[in-house]
């Protein structure tokens, strides 16, 4: 018989698992732990769902504890199998799949669910909440087929959902019951500034609107409001609030109000059962933000581990919102009342608003818009409750008040007096004590080291200043240099150092670079191999042999791999100008090979989708057209408008210019894909100002715009220069592209690159004509050595064999 007690956690989310993590730290072998969760995923960071929706973060990236964590800690986990019944007398729970578990201690951490307004039609297809990975997936899928989305609720969650949907390319309207956005976190001026900013990003708003009904046959078609106006929509996201998930607790006979009622030690009304997180109600409050949940988890873990704790006394909460360049922060009591005084700055020109609410000389609330760098220190002043009389203005203006004037505690004193169990990083629940432990006992002496050891400041980054101050507090003079990150986990060298060393030491192959620069992985990874291959080709254009095995699938097979393993074929159609004969040829090939879909691309070409790999060389052969590089980090298209050939507004021959550029730059590889466009007049029908390089004709001259992007992050191109002649257009275009090829990081689009280095830097680099001509010459050297990849494969049996499966396996006589 073992003496360990049985602990069952109901709910596999952030609050519950956080509690378990603390228990494991405080009393590693005290419990035999079993976890049941409704979702089929390991514990993930729900706060980051909006980043997943906004693009750039994958679902795998937001997992906090992966499956191996459960295994390593001996935790039995049942994902996708919620508890459906609790027998508090026999101390037993039963899951939906019939798994039974008995317990000595049970933790309820069932979280909350999106509150779906009980409207007629709320059960239609296409009406969802924004709560879990599944909702995220539903939104992403809807954006593939539908265009219009409506978000009900103009609070934090609603705006994050709306921003994500906007990024997914949907037309988004936010419906809010009140007169200004985020009214539970922001006052009127900040709410209006936020609305203005978001409107500029393309979000639409319907304020003071009450929804009456959701209409549609099977799927949602429209929303009708109480004023009888109607909004057509294909998707409705309800983000009006969350509701503690308490059904199970109620059935089991626990005292439940809004949430499961708990005391200061997270005890419910039945001994042996605790509750923590969003499902719990403490002193009348059910929290929905992460920091309080972690504070509760800490108290509960201490109690279950038999450690001393003073109990939980409620939390002051703060909110930070960051959507596409808008920074908003609010904390505490931010609205004015009879017994408060406030001090504020409002700057509509720069879009900055700051407000501090004071009561009896103490800071009780704050709102920041546009510049939230002071958020963390204001929040800590609110929590400490210290008297700031006489320093209010200095604090609001961001003038450091600890410069020795003696007014109030300095940063060092504040760090020293911070309680050990105060949570510094709300996203990852890292306390002051664990940062101290990382610095004092685990050898961390940089922010980066603390980040990877404790996850502090690894998510939203809002607590970075405090983590840095704590580092100084603990490490003193031992603070190390900030360790820079390498291009991937295989090396600590960054892009510029690698390029410099390749040039200096004359390194000529991927393998040589890895050997000489001491890679951790002898053959690298899928990130560094393709980048090294690119840098080597860029540096040694005349001699480097492109290394096929170091290229991503698409660039190895010169076609775009689809999710089912089939490929797509896009032949080059210069400037988007084709001919009846060419179209008939494409049509004949598509028919002969039974191509499932023929589609116009966004770049004025034709895409044959769903092609079996073994048919690729045959199709290329029969098309007898050059590869369009629709799969590569290379020149994609040069989109053109009709120009003065036919158009009555055209001032220049944009088609001719587009074809000329595309023929020259055909087969040009680059750090990332490159898209060009040429418009024949300022009406800009070729949408040249959202391209990597866009040429726009004006009367008697051409404008060159650079660094634009129309994809995930829309960015308008900036004017590089205006030139008079066609020859100058070519010279500047080629010089600019070569400069990008030589200086950007692998996988960095021109938009991100220019954002990083600044347009002025690029302008300056290209201002000297001799420099431009030298760049053009180097580009020409590279282009002179390219061959059409499709043709190369068709003619080379050694390459072509890799497109066909091996002959059927034959049984041996043996």
């Amino acid at each position: 018989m073992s003496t360990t007690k049985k602990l069952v956690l109901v709910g596999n989310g952030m609050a519950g698992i956080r509690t378990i993590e603390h228990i494991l730290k405080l009393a590693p072998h005290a419990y035999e732990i079993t976890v049941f969760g409704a979702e089929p995923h390991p514990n993930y960071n729900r706060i980051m769902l909006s980043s997943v929706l906004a693009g750039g973060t994958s679902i795998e990236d937001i997992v906090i504890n992966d499956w191996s964590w459960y295994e390593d800690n001996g935790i039995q986990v049942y994902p996708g199998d919620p508890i459906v019944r609790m027998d508090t007398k026999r101390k037993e729970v039963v899951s939906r799949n019939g798994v039974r578990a008995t317990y000595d201690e049970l933790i309820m951490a069932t979280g909350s669910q999106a509150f779906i307004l009980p409207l007629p039609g709320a059960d239609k297809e296409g009406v969802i909440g924004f709560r879990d990975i599944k909702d995220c997936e539903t939104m992403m899928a809807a954006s593939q087929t539908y265009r219009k989305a409506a978000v009900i609720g103009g609070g934090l969650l609603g705006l994050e959902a709306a921003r994500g949907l906007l990024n997914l390319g949907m037309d988004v309207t936010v419906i809010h019951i009140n007169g200004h956005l985020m009214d539970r976190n922001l006052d009127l001026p900040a709410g209006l500034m936020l609305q203005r900013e978001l409107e500029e990003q393309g979000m639409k708003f319907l304020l003071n609107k009450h929804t009456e009904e959701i209409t549609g046959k099977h799927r949602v078609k429209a929303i009708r409001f109480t004023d009888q106006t109607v909004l057509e929509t294909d998707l409705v996201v309800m983000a009006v609030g969350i509701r503690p998930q308490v059904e199970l607790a109620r059935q089991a006979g626990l005292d439940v109000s809004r949430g499961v009622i708990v005391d200061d030690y997270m005890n419910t009304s039945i001994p042996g059962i605790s509750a923590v997180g969003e499902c719990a109600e403490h002193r009348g409050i059910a929290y929905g933000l992460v920091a309080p949940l972690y504070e509760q988890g800490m108290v509960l873990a201490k109690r279950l581990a038999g450690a001393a704790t003073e109990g939980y006394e409620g939390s002051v909460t703060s909110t930070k919102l960051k959507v596409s360049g808008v920074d908003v922060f609010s904390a505490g009591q931010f609205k004015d009342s009879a017994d408060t005084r406030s001090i504020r700055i409002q700057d509509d020109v720069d879009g900055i608003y700051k407000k501090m609410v004071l009561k009896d000389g103490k800071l009780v609330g704050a709102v920041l818009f546009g510049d939230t760098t002071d958020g963390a220190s204001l929040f800590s002043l609110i929590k400490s409750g210290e008297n700031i009389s006489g320093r209010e203005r200095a604090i609001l203006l961001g003038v450091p008040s600890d410069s020795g004037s003696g007014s109030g505690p300095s940063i060092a004193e504040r760090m020293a007096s911070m309680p050990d169990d105060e949570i510094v990083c709300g996203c990852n629940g890292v306390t002051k004590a664990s940062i101290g432990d990382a610095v004092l006992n685990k050898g961390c002496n940089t922010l980066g080291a603390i980040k990877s050891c404790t996850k502090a400041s690894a998510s939203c980054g809002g607590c970075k200043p405090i983590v840095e101050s704590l580092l100084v507090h603990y490490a003193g003079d031992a603070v190390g240099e900030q360790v820079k990150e390498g291009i991937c986990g295989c090396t600590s060298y960054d892009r510029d150092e690698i390029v410099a060393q390749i040039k200096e030491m004359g390194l000529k192959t991927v393998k040589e670079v890895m050997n000489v620069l001491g890679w951790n992985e002898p053959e690298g990874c899928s990130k560094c191999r393709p980048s090294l291959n690119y840098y080597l080709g860029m540096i040694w254009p005349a001699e480097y042999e492109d290394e096929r095995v170091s290229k991503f699938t698409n660039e190895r097979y010169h076609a775009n791999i689809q999710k089912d393993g089939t490929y797509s074929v896009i032949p080059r159609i210069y400037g988007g100008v084709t001919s009846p004969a060419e179209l008939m040829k494409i049509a004949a090939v598509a028919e002969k090979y039974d191509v499932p879909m023929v589609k116009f691309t966004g770049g004025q070409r034709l895409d044959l989708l769903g092609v079996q790999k073994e048919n690729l060389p045959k199709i290329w052969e029969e098309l007898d057209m050059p590869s369009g590089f629709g799969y590569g980090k290379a020149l994609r298209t040069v989109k053109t408008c009709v120009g003065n050939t036919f158009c009555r507004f055209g001032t220049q021959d944009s088609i001719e210019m587009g074809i000329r550029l595309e023929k020259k730059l055909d087969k040009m590889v680059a750090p990332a894909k490159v898209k060009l466009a040429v418009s024949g007049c300022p009406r800009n029908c070729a949408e040249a100002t959202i391209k990597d390089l866009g040429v726009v004709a004006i009367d008697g001259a051409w404008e060159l715009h650079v660094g634009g992007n129309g994809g995930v992050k829309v960015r308008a191109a900036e004017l590089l220069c205006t030139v008079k002649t066609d020859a100058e257009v070519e010279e500047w275009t080629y010089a600019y592209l070569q400069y990008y090829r030589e200086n950007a990081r692998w996988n960095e689009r021109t938009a991100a690159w220019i954002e990083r280095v600044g347009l002025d830097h690029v302008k300056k680099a290209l201002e000297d004509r001799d420099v431009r001509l030298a760049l053009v010459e180097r580009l020409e050297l590279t282009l002179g050595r390219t061959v059409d990849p499709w043709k190369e494969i068709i003619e080379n049996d050694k390459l072509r064999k890799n497109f066909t499966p091996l002959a059927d396996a034959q049984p041996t006589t043996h």
Partner: protein
Amino acid sequence: MNKLHIGHLEDIDEKGSRTFKVQDTEIAVFKLSDGSLHAVENRCPHKGGKLSEGMVCGTAVHCPLHDWKIDLRSGKVHEPDDGCLNTYPTEVDGNSGEIYITIAG
């Protein structure tokens, strides 16, 4: 146990792969830079991506769909992901260079 002839050493490039089918199972056989051969089920445990199309680094292949990394010797998925796929013993005739694979059952 079935021993099947699947091809010749020269059919597979270094850090490359070829595929073949046994009944309904597609198998990919890889050649590493040390010349060794490894046959695995051609289906990433994540979303079914064709591993034969992935990049080979050392003893692992990166799935082309979402970059899961799979050890070709054990069939085990590298951390932080998790999973495992079937592997099949291969043999090469030292004289002729013919490749054989053993399928259980």
